[in-house]
């Protein structure tokens, strides 16, 4: 079976069963070439299992997958020479220095000594480890190890970079730097990464997929998902108790629900355009002491929560 060149990763009915646990239940997924693709899901969703299958750490129970057109279960053309990978908790040899480690990884990819030296120095600079390059990895902090992990994943200039929770363990500044680094790879490599930090995924991903209990709930460009799933919402803050808004707005045709917490109310609307036109007038006519009126922009978190809630409700209905 030939996979089109514009496809970086393709999974067809990929399944993985561990004993009695079905970690991945027939995943069908296509990741476009040169995209930054986020794989989202709560703990136990099947994100790491998917990544382990794609990097050949484990074998699928059923189904097939291709990375850069190469089948993951094939022996003839090894996909590992064309990908870069960083595990969730990257492990290194503590007795090696950062320089030695990158040199060793470069050797495993068959890079010549000149190319290795050049790539090693470039990457150490890119991840901000030039100053610590001659120190033993055993003395590196968690953040430094994560940066070294990203450097080793990039040493072969991979066509597809697969990263399992690459930013979860980093501090805010480290996260920002690594996200910028990943965003900078756009157009050169396909970046496929899993995360549960939704704001970070929202920031750099072109496309996302949401996994839950081994099932793909949604897959689409980030903006399209937000438009499809995020509930439009208007936040209103009054000087007095906001419970009055429940009776005032509850009967309006464009209002789905009013959630009150003290002086603040969140008004979930079905038609944002209509709500924007009618709601301010309602508030003015009721002579309410208004402190804040804000149309909330949909976030990936809203999408995620709605998708998970929807799936949980559906699975509850069927059981």
């Amino acid at each position, binding site marked *: 079976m030939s996979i089109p060149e514009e496809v970086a990763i393709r999974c067809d009915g990929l399944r993985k069963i561990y004993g009695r646990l079905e970690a991945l239940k027939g995943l069908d997924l296509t990741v476009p070439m040169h995209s930054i693709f986020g794989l989202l899901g709560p703990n136990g969703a099947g994100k790491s299992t998917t990544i382990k299958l794609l*990097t050949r750490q484990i074998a699928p129970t059923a189904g097939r997958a291709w990375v850069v057109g190469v089948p993951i279960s094939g022996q003839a053309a090894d996909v*590992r*020479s064309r*990908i870069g990978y960083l595990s969730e908790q990257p492990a290194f040899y503590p*007795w090696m220095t950062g320089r030695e480690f990158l040199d060793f*990884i470069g*050797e*495993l*990819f068959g890079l010549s000594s000149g190319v290795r030296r050049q790539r090693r120095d470039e990457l150490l600079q890119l991840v901000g480890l030039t100053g610590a390059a001659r120190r033993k990895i055993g003395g590196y902090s968690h953040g430094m190890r994560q940066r070294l992990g990203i450097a*080793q994943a990039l040493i072969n200039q991979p066509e597809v970079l697969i990263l399992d929770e690459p930013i979860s363990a980093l501090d805010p500044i480290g996260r920002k730097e690594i996200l910028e680094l990943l965003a900078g790879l756009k157009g050169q490599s396909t970046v496929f990464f899993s995360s549960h930090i939704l704001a970070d995924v929202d920031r750099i991903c072109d496309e996302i997929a949401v996994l839950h209990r081994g099932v793909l709930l949604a897959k689409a460009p980030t903006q399209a998902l937000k438009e499809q799933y995020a509930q439009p919402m208007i936040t209103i803050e009054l000087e007095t108790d906001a419970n009055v808004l429940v009776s005032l707005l509850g009967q309006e045709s464009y209002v789905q629900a009013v959630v009150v917490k003290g002086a603040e109310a969140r008004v979930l609307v079905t038609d944002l355009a209509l709500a924007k036109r009618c709601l301010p007038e309602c508030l003015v006519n009721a002579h309410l002491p208004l402190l804040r009126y804000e149309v909330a922009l949909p976030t990936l978190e809203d999408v995620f929560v709605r998708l998970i809630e929807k799936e949980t409700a559906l699975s509850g209905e069927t059981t």
Partner: protein
Amino acid sequence: MSVSTLQPLFKKELYEQYRTYRFFIALVIFLFLGISAPVITKLTPDLLKSLGGGIQITLPPQTATDALNSYLKNMTQLPSLVLILLAMGCIADERSRGTAVTVLTKPVPRSVFVVAKFLAYELTLLASLLLAAAGAYYYTKQLFEALPLGAFLLLNLGLFIFLTLSLAFTIFASALFRSSIAAGGLAFGGFLALALFPTLNSAVAQALPSVLFRAERVAQLLAGTAPLGDILKPIVIGLGLALGLIMLACIVFGHQEI
């Protein structure tokens, strides 16, 4: 098998043994065992006399052959345990710590990963054994007389194969388990089996390298009267078993999920 990844992995293993002092630990213990055999053989009558507390103990004069038998006894016991302790975590620890994932998600065949470790420990074993043999030979010559060099080298070849078998079993055990303690336990069981089987069955005894270190076979070797077939057979079988265990380790590890 990809030679291009064997070389960096082999080099990494050697560096690891050097930086974690495993190489030096093996050298020092083997050298001590090699030197101590002729020295203790020489001192045994005096030691017994001083410990005897007035009891008259008469011993036949100690010879170079006694020193050699003592050396062979030393080298078939503690060195196997040293190798088990040094190598039991070589694959199991890489799996439990996650470094195996880092390496094996690169274009590295799993068999090369196993073979590189085996070859690196073989080199450590060879260097340590050469040092022990040189020490034993030199002190035996100084304290008694020079041993026939050909027979001594042949016995050391037998020792090398015997210890290679222990090492191969340890690496196989390490490929089998994620815990180095479990791997060490199985390897120790293998070591005991290698020691016990020859006492239970004479056909097995004749086939294993340990038969070369029996006093009567040593005497034959020193006299140059040992049949060539009886010497070659345990060496070839020992080598075959070791290679078989390494192949088995490659197959087992190749089917495991890291």
